[in-house]
């Protein structure tokens, strides 16, 4: 080296080097995980603190009739499934055929929760792919979603007749999840009644 080396950068470097190294290693780790998972089916989600608690109250407009508002009280009386989606959500498109097949069994009411979406886009999405929902609530601002602890779509809640959250699934529903988790949870609700 023919140039004098300033002192300050030399001391600063190890920190920069460690940061760069950590970012690189975590990125590689994440991508390696991604590759290892790219062939496999979904894994189970973590339990939610909301399970077994009363569902948060809400009053939201109906997507297809914005002037009509629906509250949690109105939905009580029978169990229902609340499915969070958005037209911008790629995973929701993957989930859609599974959800449609389940809705067609008419096992219980499937309520759509259209989250942070443009109503026009949401309607178009339903028109293009089909509407499996008994009713779609529109939460354009995403305010009510905070109470539900929603941070991503798709997400699905099972709410019983009394308005208690009994089961929750983060990520796309699959046939395995419906068979192995949702239906047993539903039977557990209906059993003693």
């Amino acid at each position, binding site marked *: 080296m023919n140039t004098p*080396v300033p002192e300050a950068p030399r001391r600063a470097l190890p920190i920069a080097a460690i940061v760069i190294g950590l970012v690189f290693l975590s990125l590689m780790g994440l*991508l390696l995980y991604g590759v290892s998972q790219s062939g496999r089916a979904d894994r189970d989600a*973590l339990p939610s603190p909301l399970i077994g608690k009363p569902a948060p109250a809400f009053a939201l407009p109906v997507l297809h009739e914005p002037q009509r508002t629906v509250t949690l009280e109105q939905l009580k009386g029978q169990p229902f499934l609340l499915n969070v989606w*958005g037209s911008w959500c790629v995973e929701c498109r993957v989930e859609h055929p599974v959800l449609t097949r389940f809705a067609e069994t008419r096992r219980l009411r499937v309520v759509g929760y259209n989250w942070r979406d443009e109503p026009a886009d949401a309607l178009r999405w339903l028109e293009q792919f089909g509407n499996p929902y008994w009713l779609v609530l529109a939460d354009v601002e995403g305010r009510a979603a905070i109470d539900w602890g929603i941070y*991503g779509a*798709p997400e699905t809640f099972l709410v019983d007749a009394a308005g208690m959250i009994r089961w929750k699934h983060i*990520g796309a529903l699959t046939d395995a999840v419906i068979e192995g988790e949702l239906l047993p949870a539903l039977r557990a609700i209906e059993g003693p009644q």
Partner: protein
Amino acid sequence: MAVAQLLPELAQVALLLALLVAILQGVLPLLGAHRGIAPLMAVARPASYLQLALVAIAFAILTRGFVVHDFSMRYVADNSNTLLPLAFRYMAVWGAHEGSLLLWVLMLTIWSAAVARFSRSLPMPVVARVLGVIGLVSACFLAFMIFTSNPFERLLPMPAEGRDLNPLLQDRGMMIHPPMLYVGYIGFVVPFAFAIAALLDGRLDVRWLRWTRPWTNVAWAFLTIGIMLGSWWAYYELGWGGWWFWDPVENASFMPWLAGAALIHSQAVTEKRGSFNSWTLLLAIAAFSLSLLGAFLVRSGVLTSVHSFAADPTRGLFILVFLGLVIGGSLLLYVLRAPRLEDGKPFAATSRETLLLLNNLLLATACAMVLLGTLYPLLADALGLGKVSVGPPYFGLMFLLLMAPLVALVPFGALTKWQRDTPRTPTAMLLPWAGLSLLLAVVAYFMAPQGALKTAAGVLGAGWVALGTLRFVWSRLRANGRFTPEMLGMVFAHLGLAVFVMGALLVEAQNMVREVAMKPGQVEDVGAYRFEFRGVQEAPGPNYMADRGTVQVLRNGSPLALLFPEKRTYAAGGQVMTDAGIHAGVLADVLVTIGEPLGDDAWAVRMHVKPFVRWIWAGALLMALGGFVAAGDRRFRRRPEASPA
């Protein structure tokens, strides 16, 4: 005839030879530069040319396979069909994973040969190192293609008919979108290879850096055009009326673009002031690494996207190892060598350096933000939080927050002096123009038929950047009236940014959509536009059957356009595609698509009015033009004198 039948095998041999040549190009010149052995360094240039010739032969043979319908080639049978028109058969070459990889390698060898040809002004060790690094990258891609994604695999017995090209891709815009994009992605290999060469050498010579600047500009300009074409294609082909979806694949192209934009600015500082040395090298590594990461994300099936290639864990693992070697190796080299580089001249808090530093911080943050959003679904999955999508709610907001200060700073950049300036001078120059753009914004606020706030924000941002940039032009004209191509490029690119901001925010604010069931003769009003539905007829296409609607559009009562939206059913796969009827206008686009027949002659008809949507692409084109113009500056090509640095 017998020879023609063996062409795919010949292509195989050509690819294997190309791999061999690439390895030689990677190893010998680097060794030669390290040890100072001239004959080894001299291998670099001929190896580049030879590699280009070999890959071009393979590419020509694959193209021929499509042209003559050689369905004994699996890739051709999977992506073509005897009914597919000739023009689309040419582009079907890069319509799926294997062929697009071949195109990628072809672009890489073209860049490599171009570097070999246009590097006479550089000392031989630098040329040898740069071409050596490109050779190693090329060898990795060739190996990836040959071992996991061979486009010349045979399919026996030969099927009588092919499966046809994905109908979404049967479009003229798609003919040039991937090549442009790839030229851009791959183009970043030049600044990358240069950065590695500089790190290997242990010093950053400003004269060599000057030589890489046009390459960065050109690569970035091509990437801009590529992204712009993709956005335009999504707009008219998907028929949703949207122009950007924050899809992982779009993000994959956007990240290197942001890093490249930052690199262009930081290279300018390094070349002119000798500052930001190590930062420039890091950005060069980042821009190319992000290109590779993009390729990985698109081709590994790790992320769910509307237009990802087929998932295959072997391919994913291969690129991941490659990615790890390239990124890890270059970062390690950077960490070891960068601290030895010279520091530039000091600069004050109010100087052009500071502004460009802010530009770089904002662009780099935006890039990190896009990376995080793109990888978050994977992270959530890895942490057991389930599969989620991160969409416009996240990206839109974050991007607005980061781009607002960038837009606010742009006009100051050109008007502030290097090293030290009083903040008062540029502020005084710009104050009247800030006032004028604010006034325009207020007028726009009250004139907007809807979305007044976003409209005003768009006009404010666009007016401020455009007027501030023109203020710079004016002061140059008054000073001496001389513009270097570099300055002109900057002016074009910044005006492009203004035009883009205008388009993006105004279409967001004033976009109108109406979807109704219409019977022939029925009329529907959307804003100042009237749509008259004339009915639907059957119209056969070359490889599809279409229902073609006829819609008369009137603006303020006078006829504007007759549109023919189509709904096509493709013969080979039975896929249904919509083809929008579009009337393009400077101030607004009118777009009509037809959906389902609803019985009784009624059809679902969707009508969009998209004000200023063309400005988005016009802005992008202006930015690309800026990149090309700046690259044309003679200064970059002047032969450096033998004076000491």
